[in-house]
């Protein structure tokens, strides 16, 4: 179910402080940030430490543990968010296996939550 939608095409950007992974909401409509969990990120099979990951959307930089409180901010379904990571030493033009798992809790459905993991081989740009 939308298993390929979490990571955007060409979604690995090398930045001065590390890198950023471009992510999309694996759902058909916008959802409040409060019902989105960033569960895990893997780099070449290695699970990375999530404590320093920052979620960047529309000019806001949000710690992952702050998302649940953001009940009034929506992630518009066409917008790309960025997971900003400390992951260093990436080289532009090299390929990496990246996997991101998001969990969403559609707020109009009782008991539904969906865990979606996308894995892609990405060429860093």
């Amino acid at each position, binding site marked *: *179910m*939308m*298993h390929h*939608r979490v990571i955007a095409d060409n979604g690995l950007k090398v930045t001065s402080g590390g890198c950023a992974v471009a992510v*999309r909401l694996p759902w*058909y*409509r*916008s*959802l*409040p940030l*409060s*019902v989105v969990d960033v569960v895990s990120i893997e780099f070449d099979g290695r699970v990375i430490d999530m404590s320093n990951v920052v979620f960047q959307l529309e000019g806001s930089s949000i710690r992952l543990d702050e998302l*649940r409180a953001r*009940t009034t901010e*929506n992630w*518009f*379904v*066409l*917008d790309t968010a960025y997971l900003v990571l400390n992951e260093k030493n990436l080289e532009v033009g090299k390929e990496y296996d990246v996997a991101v798992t998001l969990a969403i*809790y*559609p*707020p*109009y*459905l*009782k*008991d*539904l939550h969906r*865990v979606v993991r996308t894995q892609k081989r990405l060429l860093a740009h």
Partner: protein
Amino acid sequence: MQSASSSNLRLGSTLYSFTTEYHNHDYSFESLIRRIAAENLGPGLEIVGFQSIKGFPVVSDAYADWFRGLIDEVGLELSCLGINSDFGINRDRKMTEDELFDYHVPQLHAAAKLGFPLIRYQYGAGPEAIKRLVPEAEKLGLKLALEIHASHHVQHPVILAFREMYEQVNSPLLGFIPDFGASVHSVPPSFLDFVRSIGVAESMIDLALEVWHAGGNGSEMAAQFYQKAVAMGGDADLILELFPIFGLFSRQDPRDWAEIMPQTFHIHGKFFDFADDGAEASIDYASTLKVFVEGDFNGYMSSEYEGHHWTDADAFDKVRRHHALASSILHKLG
């Protein structure tokens, strides 16, 4: 192209059908609307506010003018705005009745501003908040309709609570939207293809279908399946991939839609796959539409393709086929 038919059931499309194309940025809100019009996949047009409009339900005057102008230009007819009854935004507790009321009001205003005659609301609103919204709906000249979506059906306790409230209130503005996913006869083949493609074992699929065919309440069937599947040694993650069977498809008899016919404002013509002869693979459209035509249903049926949850098939092709199927059935029904 709707064939000549004497029924008052008019065809249309919901943009929800085009989730794959839209999510991919292959089309925008505007270019989807233009192509739907160009391909005669109207005349009815339904949208989901939180899908198509950034910042919904906040809608500026300029945006509303642009939207109404576009609809006018392309010659479509606004059938329904899907709003959401998001009771669970705060994951620690459900919204109170007051909060639910407050959450719906701006969505109703947005609908009226955009020119929709009808909104689709969801069961999470609860009968009381909807009852309190009737004066607002009257002011706005807007109809409010509860979508009856799998795993619900016309006799489900959740739906009966709304039917009771409707009887009390007796407002011509309160009605229903049957979603045909609630009256399927089998699980869509493309869904089973999908779960096979991600490695779900045949034994697990058989088990899920067995539980589903035995019938019952959706979440109870899911729980029952989960226990048995785990006992059989199924992979927990893959077991979960079968859960949509219990949430998206239910086996209500299509004839049961007749119970709510006078209060039926609009239809979600849910569909997934087509057989070689053009019939829908899991929904008996001939029998189902007969119920609505014989019940003198007057309104739009949105072609609501939902396979985008598991495949990236071309939705334009799908909706074209759905229109052809519906037109041909309506023509035969006279």
